[in-house]
């Protein structure tokens, strides 16, 4: 399981970083989106992987921390997901506005000179 989880992080991060290095704004947005999936999974993984141990207390099992998955990374990632959404929205609008102003969707705000 761990190896698949790790590879999933790697593939998504790699694709995301590749897209971040592209010249068009839409590619950058998609890249950011993929990279945030990868980073969220990575942070989440820091609490180790456990199945069937959701951190919702069960009266019959008690409040022993060993019985539940680590809630702290989960709380962190939850806020990260929502903030990630906000950042994507802001970026999208900034890029749209930049495109309207500069007439191009190149990240530098102008088309590169062809060598």
């Amino acid at each position, binding site marked *: *399981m*761990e190896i*698949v*989880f*790790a590879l*999933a*992080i*790697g*593939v*998504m*991060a790699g*694709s*995301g*970083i590749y*897209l971040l*290095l*592209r010249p*068009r704004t*839409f590619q950058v*947005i*998609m890249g950011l*989106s*993929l990279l945030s*999936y990868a980073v969220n*999974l*990575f942070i*989440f*993984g820091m609490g*180790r992987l456990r*199945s*069937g*141990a*959701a*951190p*919702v*207390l069960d009266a019959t099992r008690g409040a022993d921390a060993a019985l*539940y*998955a*680590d*809630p*702290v990374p*989960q709380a962190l990632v*939850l*806020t990260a*997901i*929502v*903030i990630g959404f*906000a950042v*994507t*929205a*802001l970026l*999208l*609008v*900034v890029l749209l*506005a930049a*495109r*309207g*102003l500069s007439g191009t969707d190149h990240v*530098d705000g102008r088309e590169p000179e*062809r060598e």
Partner: protein
Amino acid sequence: MELALIIFLPFLGSLGAAFLPPNARNAEAWLAGAAALAATAITVSLYPQVAAEGVLRLNLPWAPALGLDISLRMDGFAWLFALLVTGMGTLVVIYARYYMSPADPVPRFFSFFLVFMGAMLGVVLSGHLIQMVMFWEMTSLSSFMLIAYWHHRGEARRGARMALTVTGAGGLALFGGVLLLGHIAGGYDLDTVLAAAPQVKAHPWYPAVLALIALGALTKSAQFPFHFWLPHAMSAPTPVSAYLHSATMVKAGVFLLARLWPVLAGTDAWFWIIGGAGLCSLVLAGYLAMFQQDMKGVLAYSTISHLGLITLLLGMNSELALVAAVFHIANHATFKASLFMAAGIVDHETGTRDLGRLSGLSRAMPLTAALAVVAAAAMAGVPLLNGFLSKEMFFAETVFLDRPDWQRFGLPLAATLAGVFSVAYSLRLIQRVFFGPPAQDLPHTPHEPTRWMLLPSALLVAACVLVGVVPELVIGPYLRTATGAILGADAPAYSLAVWHGFNTPLLMSFVALGGGALLHGALLARRGATTVPLLESIDGRHLFDVTLTALTTGAERALRRLSSPRLQMQMLLIFAVALGGALLLVKPFGIGWGANAPQPLDPAFALLWLVGGACALAVAWQAKYHRFAAVAFAGGAGLATSLTFVWFSAPDLALTQLTVEVVTTVLILLGLRWLPRRDERIAGPGGATPRLRRSRDILVAGGCGLGLAALAYAVLTRPAVDGIAPFFVQQALPQGGGLNVVNVILVDFRGFDTFGEITVLGIVALTVYALLRRFRPAPESMRLPDQQHEQDGDASPRDSQEAMLPAGAMMLPAVLVRLLLPLALLVSLFFLLRGHNAPGGGFVGGLILATAVILQYLVGGTHWVESRLRIHPLYWIAIGLLLAAAAGIGAAFAGAPFLTSQAWHGTLPVVGELHLSSVLLFDLGVYMLVVGATTLMLVAIAHQSLRSQHHRTATGDTR
């Protein structure tokens, strides 16, 4: 407490002055005068205490854990300086009231003037070195603002910038020196430092400390080789020159040297650095002052020269010289401020300060002339005036200096030469301005100014005469307290008498007076040229400009060489550096796989990520030409992520991820149509370079991805660390009153974080809204998309409200979606309410409702929705934030800290058993804010289509 009041009053006055109307000259002057006078009165009233107790202290704890207190300390020396600052401030305020023209915006002037006064008092009265440096910087800044007061003049801006650059750099050096000094002494408290003198002088860092502190002091006091800024600072209004640049701020440097004299002085390095700089300034600036054409230029160079004299005295390593230095600080302030005021009066009444044009003013303004003559005589060192006394002490010190042979001869000669210069430039100034034939072509006809403008000058001149005639009576005891404070019990005995008999110093004085008169009569009086002979080529300003230009161009060149203006290249560098740095760390830390046995692989999970990974790769592949496909694939990757969260016991995350995924997809789809067409067929020429670039990027991206994967695997195969998780799990029910630990952390334990987060979300939504209000789409994306065009056809004009209703095949989903809205509301409330004990919560609930609303828009069309459903996302955001804040503040009523949860459990007659918690209120706030923010963003983007339609109709473009 009085100590704090002295510093506090000017700052308070400054705040008041800043808010008065621009033309309230009288009110401003009264306010500033009152603040200054009150500070003066308090200072004067403290003298008996200072004289009796030696040192007054006031400690206000600020950050005691770091050893940082607000510490004020007044001894005799600080008292003398504080009196100088406050008293001179009062006089200059009176003067400035009549000097400033009604057209000048006086609030700015008096406000910064008072800030300066407070900062200068802070420097003088600080008992803590770092605190003193902070006030020191504040004097530099306020001086900058005051020099640039008439900022429409280029020279004022240049002068201000030069002064700030030089004194600011010096301040930085001083900060470094003070940090070292405090480190050696074992504390930054002035008393600690003063007591640690032997350690400091023996320490190997002593030369560094000395050099850094000397840099600070010499730049501030405009000493050679940093003297060049002071003449350029003369473009400030004359009251500023009189106050900051002759009487007080430039004295901060010598103040510091005197303050630290017991700690740092007494070594050869001190003698050469401080004494050398002082001697150079004394002679050189005296020489330059003889050839200036501007009245204030003469005074500026003479100020540098006199400060050089004080610095030289301090550098002599003799206690009597220190006494002379302190005495001369006070004397110089009185006669030089008075002369500056005279120069300002001449400028004010005639419209010029040019020595070549001014002449014979003593007939038109006899009172001004008389005052200026006496002050200039004091500056020249004429007997029976205060300047004579301290200069005599200086001459005596040079004669009795305990140094090797050539220095014993050289120093008195140099001192006499400087005396000659001083007499010559004083004579030249007075003779050119006030005597000779009356000037003809002055901008204004000269006449005597109002008496209030003369009063400050007259008071200062009176002080010059009184000190000069009966020194022991007027200043003797205060001077003794001041020097006693620096030197301690072993202060030497000295006599302040006017007459010491015929001796070498007296002879030197007469040589200086005679030589100066001769020099003036023989050369200067007849000289018409406006240049400086011999030293024309040595120009500090030129050097400063060249250095500054070299620095700027060098920085630009380095930036060009080291970085790229292209964002792609910068991004690549960031990732390459991160990757390289991480790889470098692998070896020393020996990061390998952990020992934990991996869990057995579930084929379903492997399949899930086969699809998920393929989706991610497909996004990277398709994002350039097939945006829609890329969005769909990204959704696939998101779904796989969401399912992974479910798999590994994170239901809350899965829910949030899923809802966010929906909203993000809708958002991007809405934005898609505003992007330019990108088509494989019209792609630029391919070739080796783009392919090479792509391969390089793939290499870096692949490396980063693999690294991250390896890192994740290395962590996952190691045993978990307990960390803080057990606390949250154990306390969730007893303290948070909830079973869902993640939700309890979010809304209770870390509620403040969440509060900040939803605030950010609200800000982002408002930013999106604001950005889109001014949105101007590119012209080619203005026309209706092909799909919409085909659906509606050209036949149906889309201008009437009725036509906006969905038609044809869209009617069915429109009805269904209408039914969905109340259901969605119910579901979202269900998730909100159960969030505390089961997966769900405000975030998830809010996103669900927002999705339902946006569905209405998608299917029903904007017009249809907005004519029936009134959603005010801005209100939702505001109310959400207020609710969350109210839930937090409510804790205060129970006497608990912000955001502590309060619960009530009981039974109501009809409802039955009930558990109410402030946490629910908080989560409701989160819910409402999320709904508001999400719909605001989505609707704002969606509205762009409508607006561009209006735009089209307005321009008559029917397509």
